[in-house]
């Protein structure tokens, strides 16, 4: 899934063999999810769906994929279409190395290939009506994978563990010192440092941001996240972090936060009712997890 994965387990009741079996199970599950949902793997489910775009052929889906589709659909509606798993083709508009628009690609041509509401789903499965359309659940699968890993550990009886998947973290129980797990939220100015620490017990913390993937455009760094209706880089916060019961929901909330300007992002995060942190373009922290409760309006 494009990032490091680490699982920390504390247990005095499980044998080394049992721990190894469980870890192997977790890795198998993570690899299976990557094989299923990675658009970079030609035989993944997502690649099959994308390859059949415009052919009229449906790809069968199961309950797991249907649930991710349902969540995507709910997010699309909650954000009036801003969260759109089909927006990836808009990347063709930009040369991210130079920060310039690709003049040979016209927005009007790409707009025909973008639009979650155009994706067709019925008893046969899912299909994309236009050739060149693509879907990508990358904004959800990594968080779902973290929850799936946590579920395996809980079912195996582990009561103290920490799952870290490239910044999406799920904490089970207390740490080895019988205290909450202490997790640092990355400083966008210096990603090796933590700007804020969060204490977790049976909770998840997920961050979304443009500091890792952004490009220089018109004199400033802008997000790689593009607006699905204009193709323009979204002028959003530098980073959004949410703490929740599950990585999937916390991650979805954080992702949507980064899809909006800072004012609307704060409104969205407040609506979630969960602890959150927003780091703006000036590296100022706002929210219940930050130094300031809210950004001055």
């Amino acid at each position, binding site marked *: 899934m494009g990032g490091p994965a680490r699982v920390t387990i504390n247990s005095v009741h499980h044998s080394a063999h049992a721990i190894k079996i469980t870890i192997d199970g977790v890795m198998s599950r993570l690899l299976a999810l990557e094989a299923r949902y990675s658009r970079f793997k030609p035989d993944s489910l997502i690649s099959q769906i994308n390859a059949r775009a415009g052919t009229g052929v449906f790809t069968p889906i199961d*309950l797991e994929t249907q649930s991710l589709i349902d969540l995507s659909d*709910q997010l699309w509606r*909650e954000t009036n279409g801003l969260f759109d798993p089909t927006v990836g083709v808009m990347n063709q508009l930009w040369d991210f190395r130079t920060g310039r628009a690709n003049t040979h690609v016209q927005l009007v041509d790409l707009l025909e290939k973008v639009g979650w509401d155009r994706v067709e789903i*019925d008893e*046969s499965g899912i299909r994309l009506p236009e050739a060149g359309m693509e879907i990508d659940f990358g904004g959800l699968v990594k968080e779902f994978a973290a929850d799936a890993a946590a579920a395996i550990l809980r079912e195996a009886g582990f009561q103290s563990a920490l799952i870290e998947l490239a910044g999406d973290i799920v904490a089970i129980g207390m740490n080895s010192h019988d205290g909450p797990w202490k997790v640092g939220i990355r400083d966008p100015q210096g990603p090796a440092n933590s700007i804020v620490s969060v204490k977790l017990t049976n909770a998840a913390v997920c961050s979304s941001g443009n500091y890792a993937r952004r490009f220089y455009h018109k004199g400033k760094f802008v997000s790689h996240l593009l607006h699905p209706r204009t193709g323009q880089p979204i002028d959003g916060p530098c980073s959004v972090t949410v703490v929740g019961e599950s990585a999937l929901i916390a991650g979805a909330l954080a992702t949507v936060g980064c899809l909006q300007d800072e004012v609307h992002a704060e409104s969205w995060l407040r609506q979630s009712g*969960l602890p959150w942190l927003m780091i703006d373009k000036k590296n100022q922290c706002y929210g219940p997890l930050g130094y300031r409760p809210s950004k001055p309006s």
Partner: protein
Amino acid sequence: MRPLPARSPLVRRLSQTVAALPVYHGSVLADAPPAYTEVGVRYTQYAEDSLSDDKVLFGSPDRYDIDITQLWIEAPLGASWAVALDLQNDYQTGASPWFVGATADGSPGVIMSGASIQDNRVEVGITTRYFWADGNAGFNVVHSKEDDYEALAWSMDAAWNTNRNATTWSVSASSSHDTVEPTQEKIPVFIDSETLDTHSLYFGVSQILSRTAVVKVGLSYTYSEGFLSDPYKLRDQRPEEHHRYTLATGLRQHFISLGGSLHADYRYYSDDWGSKSHTVSMGWVQPFDRHTINPYVRYYSQGQADFFSPIADLTSNHYSDDYRLSSFGALTAGLRWTIELGDWIAEAQVERYVSNHGWSTYSGDEAPALVDFWRGTVGIIWRFD
């Protein structure tokens, strides 16, 4: 680390979309209070057709009209509770059959109850519900009062999910204590005050068959004891106990390609008064953008109670000429429409019910006072976080 706050409506809405996944089975995502606070008001007008003149021996052929106004509020309380308040007011006017006599040729004819009554009933109900990871449980109390009738009822219900949320088991128990003190108006009544008690049990299970189909089956038993006759009917003397049994099944099948769902239900009823019935209903729910339409039809077939006869047999221990205990069939056709406008939902419903002795699958005698009616409803609902 402070505990996470109660889930907001936004988080509830998102969580519900993935609650079926085994990864989230047993977590607090599985069952949850409503995602919104809901306030609604609904007005229903119920109007019975007048009896045909050839069936009326005496009195006005006009029957009941009832205006029903409902107000409800349902709100989540914290992460695990919900509370609801229901208010209903029924304003009833009109006349009903008093008894059935014989015409000159011996055929039954209806003697109506005389001048129109005016009666107002107020009902108040409160429900609390608790949610946990795998289910929910509720407790409800209802009080209703009108000039000649008062009822106090309580009920408890619980539902729990198993099989990775694919199966839901439901149970409920209820009890009601009613007091009837008929008012002496244009027709004589022969009791001052009587009571009746009703107790009911229900058990049901629903099963998700696929991502588009759910089936359910339920059994219920109801026992009533006390004054079960109709005090406003001259010739009505019913047993003081009544055992009732029902079996209900249902199917909800969603057709993704059509974007709509089929609702099919069957109910079988039987009691120790000798009455049986079948109910078959079919409906279709079709969303269009912000609109949803729901046409439905229902067929009902009833067999008469042992002590029913079109002209009451007063030589028996129990007797009644009440058309509601006769053998008849009925067809209902209706249409419900809703539109969502942001946080508001407007709804309207119209229904036509027609009954006929010849439509029953059971043999028996024809009651001359079978009822036909129209029912129309409009309502508006406001949902907010």
